[in-house]
């Protein structure tokens, strides 16, 4: 029986068989005999999550634009399917051609969040690929990229290459190099040595790590004679207008998380929120021109049939000509019944005009992220917004017919006190009052305020990389404090989660190479889909750390001295450690740093010639 038939036989017995079906409109099919390089792109989560991810779409189409390569997709099979595949001996397969992953040349894996790391081991195992790099003598080279690639050390034993930064160009270079390597008939290790010369490519196996007696890292240096650079600096695409962007997007059959056209209007954010890794590792701001965006939107609407375009970026309200862009989009597409939406709305942007434009087509909940409840703490995290900004934004929104507001906060930010937490409830109460200050005949009925409080995870490559995570008991205490305070504000829905998942996330965000051992143990004990609260097994994780002789508190809860060598110091995200340290010190002094568009703050991006000049 063919692998395809064997897969078919399982699909009747699993949840959501469309996840494994393939055959979507705009999926790329090629003749396997007509290409030199088979590239499998793994998103280590479910189909619905992975298919909502923009980066994968960009790289899928960028690779498939080449005649000599075929990129196919693969997602983590849900636990029911994974178990049946193991039972029947069906290896992990690609969606397009149902080819076993171990037969591919390159396996690209995107690291979007730390809690997907066990899914990577699960995928390798299901594919029949040995987990550890040194055990692999054939099969695809494993290449990781994405935001978590800036500290890939816990994954170091399992991966061949790590691609830092924008993937549009460096991915092509890894493919070009693969062709060269294959044509030359060189040994496997030679591909790694050659890849280490590509800008932005880090090869963990070419580096030696030494540790101090206290367990901290002493040094990470290239192995003698390896030719690998001392520091690997992230790849940067300077001009997004000329960068490749898909003209066609795969249109899934089932419902996925974000089922719409995603139009990336710019990349990067320079507001400098000190907790935010994306705000550091995607610098500088690179905008696409309105003309380019209109052309992209035209072809995507025609090729997908979607009725919604989402203007994506880290902070879409910051697009320099947002009112003009929104206006032109609405004008061009309203007659075709295509809605325009703006995610991740910030509260300090001049919303009014844009809101008017978008509401012409559809009204969704206004989502704002004050992050902290008091001005003092917002200054610490450099969230350069005031209460007055928030009040103005929500009042505008209520006056224009919005009635649902979602407010996002974090608990456990550095220097946080009970008072800061109670400030969140005050803010919710003020938002409520804003609604009732709008005359009844002008406001939409049915006020809904949702307050979401996540647990702060200090991330590598942010000014808060020196900060300890707040301990479990104090987090729980502050969650309860906030819950009680919010119970006195009518009409508020409070959402929060147990801190255990954020704790494991914090361990891995700033973890070192030794954690690979704990990761493998946790997976062997059955951990997978850790980001899904119904699958997450805190007890198994703690056991895995214990058996590996590692103390998770050491990674998550320890205040780190400013002269400590970090496990990721040899990976340069573009923003310098000096800058982040200055920002950490300013945070502790409660000093704000303005957006660099109002004057260079010396973050280090100027080291890329011309990078900061395009805006």
């Amino acid at each position, binding site marked *: 029986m063919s692998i395809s038939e064997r897969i078919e036989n399982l699909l009747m017995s699993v949840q959501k068989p*469309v996840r494994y079906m393939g055959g979507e409109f705009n999926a790329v099919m090629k003749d396997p005999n007509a290409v030199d390089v088979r590239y499998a792109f793994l998103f280590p989560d479910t189909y619905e999550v992975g298919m909502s991810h923009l980066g994968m779409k960009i790289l899928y189409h960028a690779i498939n634009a080449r005649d000599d390569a075929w990129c196919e997709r693969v997602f983590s099979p849900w636990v029911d399917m994974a178990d049946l595949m193991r039972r029947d001996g069906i290896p992990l397969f690609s969606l397009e051609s149902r080819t076993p992953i171990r037969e591919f040349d390159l396996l690209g894996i995107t690291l979007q969040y730390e809690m997907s790391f066990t899914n990577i081991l699960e995928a390798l195992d299901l594919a029949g690929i040995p987990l550890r790099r040194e055990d692999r003598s054939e099969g695809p080279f494993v290449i990781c990229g994405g935001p978590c690639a800036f500290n890939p050390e816990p994954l170091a034993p399992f991966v061949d290459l790590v691609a830092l930064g924008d993937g549009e160009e460096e991915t092509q270079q890894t493919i070009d190099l693969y062709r060269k390597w294959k044509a030359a008939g060189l040994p496997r290790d030679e591909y790694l040595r050659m890849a280490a010369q590509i800008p932005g490519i880090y090869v963990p196996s070419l580096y030696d790590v030494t540790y101090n007696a206290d367990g901290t890292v002493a040094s990470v240096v290239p192995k003698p004679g390896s030719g690998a650079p001392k520091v690997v600096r992230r790849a940067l695409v300077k001009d997004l207008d000329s960068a490749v962007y898909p003209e066609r997007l795969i249109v899934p059959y089932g419902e996925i998380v974000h089922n719409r056209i995603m139009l990336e209007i710019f990349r990067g954010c320079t507001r400098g929120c000190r907790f935010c890794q994306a705000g550091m590792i995607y610098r500088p701001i690179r905008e696409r021109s309105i003309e380019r965006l209109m052309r992209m939107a035209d072809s995507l609407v025609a090729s997908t049939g979607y009725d919604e375009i989402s203007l994506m970026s880290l902070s879409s309200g910051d697009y320099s000509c947002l009112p003009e862009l929104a206006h032109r989009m609405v004008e061009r597409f309203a007659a075709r019944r295509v809605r325009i939406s703006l995610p991740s709305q910030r509260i300090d942007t001049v919303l009014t005009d844009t809101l008017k434009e978008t509401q012409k087509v559809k009204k969704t909940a206004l989502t704002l992220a004050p992050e902290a409840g008091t001005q003092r703490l917002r200054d610490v995290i450099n969230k350069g917004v005031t209460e007055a900004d928030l009040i103005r934004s929500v009042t505008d929104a209520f006056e224009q017919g919005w009635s649902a507001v979602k407010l996002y906060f974090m608990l456990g930010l550095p220097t946080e006190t009970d008072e800061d937490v109670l400030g969140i409830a005050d803010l919710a109460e003020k938002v409520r009052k804003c609604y009732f200050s709008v005359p009844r005949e002008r406001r939409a009925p049915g006020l809904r305020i949702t307050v979401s409080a996540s647990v702060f995870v200090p991330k590598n490559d942010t000014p808060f990389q020196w900060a300890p995570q707040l301990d479990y008991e104090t987090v729980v205490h502050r969650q309860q404090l906030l819950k009680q305070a919010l119970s006195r504000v009518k009409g508020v829905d409070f959402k929060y989660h147990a801190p255990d998942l954020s704790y494991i996330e914090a361990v891995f965000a700033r973890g070192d190479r030794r954690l690979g051992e704990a990761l493998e143990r946790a997976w062997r004990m059955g951990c997978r889909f850790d980001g899904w609260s119904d699958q997450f097994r805190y007890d198994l994780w703690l056991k895995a750390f214990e058996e590996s002789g590692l103390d998770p508190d050491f990674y998550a809860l320890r205040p780190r001295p400013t002269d400590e060598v970090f496990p990721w110091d040899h990976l340069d995200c573009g923003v310098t450690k000096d800058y982040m340290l200055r920002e950490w010190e300013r945070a502790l002094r409660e000093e704000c740093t303005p957006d660099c568009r109002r004057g260079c703050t010396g973050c280090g991006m100027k080291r890329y010639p011309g990078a900061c000049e395009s805006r």
Partner: protein
Amino acid sequence: MRALIRFGKQPRLRFISHLDLQRFFQRAVNRTGLPIAFTQGFNPHPVMSFSSALALGWTSEYEVIDIKLSAPMGRKRTEDAVRSALPEDLPVLETRMVDDRHPAPMALVRMSDYIVRLGGEDASAIVAQIPAFLDREIVNAVKKTKSGEKEINARPLVLSMEPLDAASFKTRLMLTESQSIKPELLVGLLSDMAAVEAPQIRVHRLSLSGLDADGNPAPLMTL
């Protein structure tokens, strides 16, 4: 003006649910570039309907979608536009342009033809029961409906049935709102007669039919 499009559903896409297929077509018609008529109201959507829902896991060569156009359009151009908006596993097989007064195909459907393939070792024993089934006047069955279970006589709902080989048969079954029987239930009854467990089956729809002016069965697209 309306376009009646007959299309197939190939094995690869047999797990798209009817609801997902409806959503899929809402986007697909947007891709055609045809002048599609939209519903009025707050949340407009294309005016279209399906002749009959295909169960999850089945394949077909006779699915009919009825799409309303807001301006006249030639048959060939319509067919080409729809074909270009569908993946190859949903092939366009036939197109017919009708005017707005033409009855909805859904209302014309009376019966459907299927090929049923049986899995497992008891397949031939089950297929062997076909003549005995057809000889009976009454075959009692319990049909699950939305409101619960219902006792029915299954025999008159099976218009024809003939073995194709040891593990498959072809059958024509009633398919109206009040009178219908699914292949699963039919195979269940044959299995009972053979005193074996009902096996896994694969169902392929060959056609949908209604009645012509003389009251004779005729394929839906010709009515």
